[in-house]
């Protein structure tokens, strides 16, 4: 069985016939070649696959592509215009909020989700909001600093 879906990703509409078991993260990476969204633990824990779906952060490894039919999705590629850095991306750069970078797209989408509802979060609120995003390189100190810095700059 295949199911026809229509999804808006980063402002562009896409129509595809998909297998019902296709996960959203694989739809984004393999059907649309948007490989900025990473596959990490595949068990809803690490958050590397975080994207925004109709304004809310979700783990795209735990959604089926058919569930995204009619939805509007933002991935790391769509956060800012081509060639420009989103204020959160700039802040992660400035504050060295990454080491290997694997968790970064998910971290930035999760942070964007937080700032959308709480534009000036305290440190504990930032740490709480990152509960679903794991960094295995170096800890969270500079990630938190980067989000604080982006919030101060009005991200």
């Amino acid at each position: 069985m295949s199911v026809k879906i229509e999804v808006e990703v980063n402002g562009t509409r896409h129509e595809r016939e998909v297998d019902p078991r296709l996960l959203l993260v694989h739809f984004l990476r393999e059907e649309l070649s948007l490989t900025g969204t990473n596959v990490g633990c595949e068990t809803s824990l690490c958050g590397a696959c975080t994207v925004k779906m109709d304004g809310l952060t979700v783990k795209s490894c735990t959604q089926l592509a058919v569930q995204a039919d009619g939805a509007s999705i933002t991935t790391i590629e769509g956060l800012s215009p081509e060639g420009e850095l989103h204020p959160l991306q700039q802040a992660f750069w400035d504050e060295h909020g990454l080491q290997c970078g694997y968790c970064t797209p998910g971290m930035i989408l999760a942070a964007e989700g937080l700032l959308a509802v709480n534009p000036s979060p305290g440190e504990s609120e930032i740490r709480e909001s990152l509960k679903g995003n794991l960094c295995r390189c170096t800890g969270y100190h500079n990630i938190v600093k980067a989000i604080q810095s982006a919030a101060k700059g009005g991200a």
Partner: protein
Amino acid sequence: MFPAKCDYYRATSAAEAIDLLGRHDNARLLAGGHSLIPMMKLRLCEPAALIDIGRLEELRGVSENDIGDNALRIGALSTHTEIATSETLRTRCSLLAEAARQIGDPQVRNKGTIGGNIAHADPASDLPAVLVALGATIHILGPNGERSIAAPSFFTDLLTTALEPNEIVTTIEVPVAPPGSGSAYLKVEHPASGYAVCGAAATMTIEGSSCTAASLAFNGVAATPVHAEAVTAALAGTAADDSAFRAAVDAHLEIAEPLGDLHASGEYRVALAKVYGRRALEKARDRALS
């Protein structure tokens, strides 16, 4: 990890979902997918057909006004985020909002639903004991119409509920917290998964300095939520002080078959339940008095 092949049908009404469940063998309901999809990826569950109820507006939302006798209705498709941030629940049934806020992480709360959560009936989940402590009622729709089940009778075994194969949870009805009452949900969570190693849900009504009514239930310590009715029966009408809580918990908390696994033995979970049960009662009292 990929789920096994399956068919997919999108229901346009709760009645159609029930009809589709009846017409397809080995069909499963898909709501937020946050219990089902992980099970499918691990091949612990290989449905032949998914019936997607995720878009049914009739099953969504928290009632702003009381229905009937001081109760609130919560649509089964309400997400944990919607429940945690609902002003109505935060002010009038804060125990549920407090527990929903402690589920998983923001992304999981954005998609996971209360109906899916209780239908999955994971013993380490946060909502089952909360609904038991609240005295919630689960409303169900099936081929023979509607029926209702009290929360303690809904959870029948590990990952097993009183739902018949072709039935769906439509709404959860919770009582409004009475005046002079307080509640608390405290948990020891597994550090990686966030699931409850032990979760204690308590409510208490205080008059003067006495406890006039209380309820206490636990997640994570047995196959189904443990409803500590003997503990709260012993507390009714007594002075609401820490020593009374300790005495009641120590004397009356009985967990017949505690659940043990590689994370925590049954014996350890019982020890946690005694401590966290007491602390949840203390916090519920403090909130009732504040």
